[in-house]
């Protein structure tokens, strides 16, 4: 019998944390209210008091709390990041999710009892990379970037003792996480430096005779016809002109969903599946957590006969970016 797969859900706020716990998350992940985490958006995240309340709420119900400190500190801000590590240790979170090697070094040295996970922002895509983090910092778990096919994930697992966590649902990063500077190229702020991709303050909407323009840092990234649905503008999901053709040259607005391959993930011995979306509403968190809880339980109970229920698919597509889903890189054809 394989070990149970942990369902890890996003907590961008205390209500979202409660929604995740109430709907069956095994663990929630959250960040502090500053640039130390990769969802640094106005109004999101936890100050110390909310963090304490959230941890208590989850613990009383037997769930874990992971804390994301997954941006890259520069010397000018170093003390803020190490302060966040110390604070997390004091709060007693179940694990820290780190990306920066320097910060890992600090955490491993200063708080050796603290469990460390390697963030997706750490960009470890091979067992050689993962094992370096393991040897140097005793990393217990790795969140894989969304670039590997399923056989490649298996190959990684065959060659490392680290637990493997993969993304199960949510907005799809097309680029290797942690190594994408598209946002700072247009706006000056990136996930690595500021914890924000396509920061809200750089977004401009304008109604024009041609349609509704959206710009990021002044660059026109899309133009919507009247009545056309518009999502949150990220650079990699805009429409551009290449060789005279205008289309989604990088990726369509779409969400990742692994519903179709849950039994394979269970069989492979994946340790955890993760839901993206700390920037989304508590209602989103509740909906997605509920569906994935049911689906994961079903896949673990009877992997041979598992098939995604149509009401699950519909419920997830309703909250998906572009109202549609893909397996992303896990499926070779997408690449």
């Amino acid at each position, binding site marked *: 019998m394989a070990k149970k797969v942990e369902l890890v859900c996003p907590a961008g706020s205390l209500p979202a944390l409660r929604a995740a716990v109430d709907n069956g998350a095994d663990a929630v992940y959250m960040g502090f209210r500053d640039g130390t985490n990769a969802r640094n958006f106005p109004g999101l995240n936890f100050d110390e008091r909310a963090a304490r309340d959230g941890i208590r709420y989850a613990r009383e119900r037997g769930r874990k709390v992971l804390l994301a400190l997954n941006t890259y500190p520069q010397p000018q801000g170093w003390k803020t990041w190490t302060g966040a590590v110390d604070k997390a240790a004091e709060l007693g979170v179940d694990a820290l999710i780190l990306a920066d*090697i*320097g910060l890992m070094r600090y955490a491993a040295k200063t708080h050796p009892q603290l469990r460390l996970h390697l963030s997706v922002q750490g960009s470890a895509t091979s067992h050689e990379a993962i094992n370096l983090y393991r040897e140097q910092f005793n990393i217990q778990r790795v969140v894989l970037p*969304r670039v590997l096919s399923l056989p490649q994930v298996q190959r990684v697992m065959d060659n490392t003792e680290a637990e493997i966590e993969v993304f199960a649902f949510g907005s799809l990063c097309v680029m290797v996480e942690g190594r994408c500077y598209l946002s700072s190229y247009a706006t000056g702020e990136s996930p690595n430096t500021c914890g924000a991709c396509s920061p809200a303050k750089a977004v401009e909407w304008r109604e024009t005779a041609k349609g509704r323009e959206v710009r990021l840092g002044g660059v026109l990234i899309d133009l919507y016809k009247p009545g056309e649905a518009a999502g949150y503008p990220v650079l990699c999901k805009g429409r551009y002109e290449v060789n005279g053709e205008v289309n989604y040259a990088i990726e369509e607005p779409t969400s990742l969903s692994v519903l179709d391959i849950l039994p394979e993930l269970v069989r492979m011995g994946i340790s955890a599946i993760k839901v993206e979306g700390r920037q989304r509403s508590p209602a989103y968190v509740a909906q997605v957590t509920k569906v994935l809880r049911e689906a994961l339980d079903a896949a673990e109970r009877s992997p041979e006969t598992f098939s995604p229920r149509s009401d699950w698919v519909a419920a997830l597509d309703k909250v998906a970016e572009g109202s549609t889903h893909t397996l992303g890189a896990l499926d070779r054809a*997408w690449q």
Partner: protein
Amino acid sequence: MKLALGPLLYFWSRDDVLAFYRQACDWPVDVVYLGEAVCSKRRGVRLEDWLAIAEELSAAGKEVVLSTLALIEAESELLTLRRIVDNGRYAVEANDMGAVRLAAGKLPFVAGPHLNAYNCETLGLFRDLGAQRWVMPVELSRDTLAAIQACRPAGLETEVFAFGRMPLAFSARCFTARHYNLPKDDCQLRCGDFSDGLVLNSQEGEQFLAMNGIQTQSAATCNLIGAVPELKELNVEVLRLSPQSRHMDKVVAAFRTVIDGTLTPQQGVEAMAGLTRGEPCNGYWYGSAGLAWLEQDEVRAARAQSGG
């Protein structure tokens, strides 16, 4: 201050590659990075060929470093990586943490621009594992570099990406193949048709990005020639010039003359007019959006504002 030719990021024909590096033997560059850093499907120039090119460049007095793939996904890519690390003669540029693990304690390495070194503690680890040089991530600014230089570990050289279309992102997906509706497994190596990348424009015709297979670059060309005095002042040892298909000899010459003081930085900027493949940009260096180009007076204003 040394000049380096960064690894060739495009898929040029074997003849073009050989011709390019034959010319480079005579250019005033000190370091040359060789090898495929973007896509393992590009096999026009094999490791044996790179080693032969390395031999010629070494004979011409250049320091040669073998660059490794930035995004490693397949087991076959790890095999190639091991062969590069075990070359027995040249240092390697590690562009992935897997490469760092393989090189650690075995041979001196350069911590490449894709390793995410944003602070001195990170550099300390790289130095302890055997790094002799690090390349600053392209999105970092002059102010951050100043702070890092103040605490960088002894014995570690600093290299800054000073010229060329900047690598901004990597993906499992090949965007050039996608443009032609080809699956990646049958990409027909169409990236070979674009010697400086395939430009992606905004819908109002602004050149924005350049697609180079699985790598996304800036359409604008980074040009820090005007910042050479600041780079010197910050004790940067090496400037990286990333190869483009044309005028590379003139680009190298312009940087060399500004470093030597034969041309002023402003004269250097003028000498570079028309030599960049895209519009010039220097925004990252001044703490701005990467695509921006700041003129000297704007640079001065920015400096006054930051109190530097």
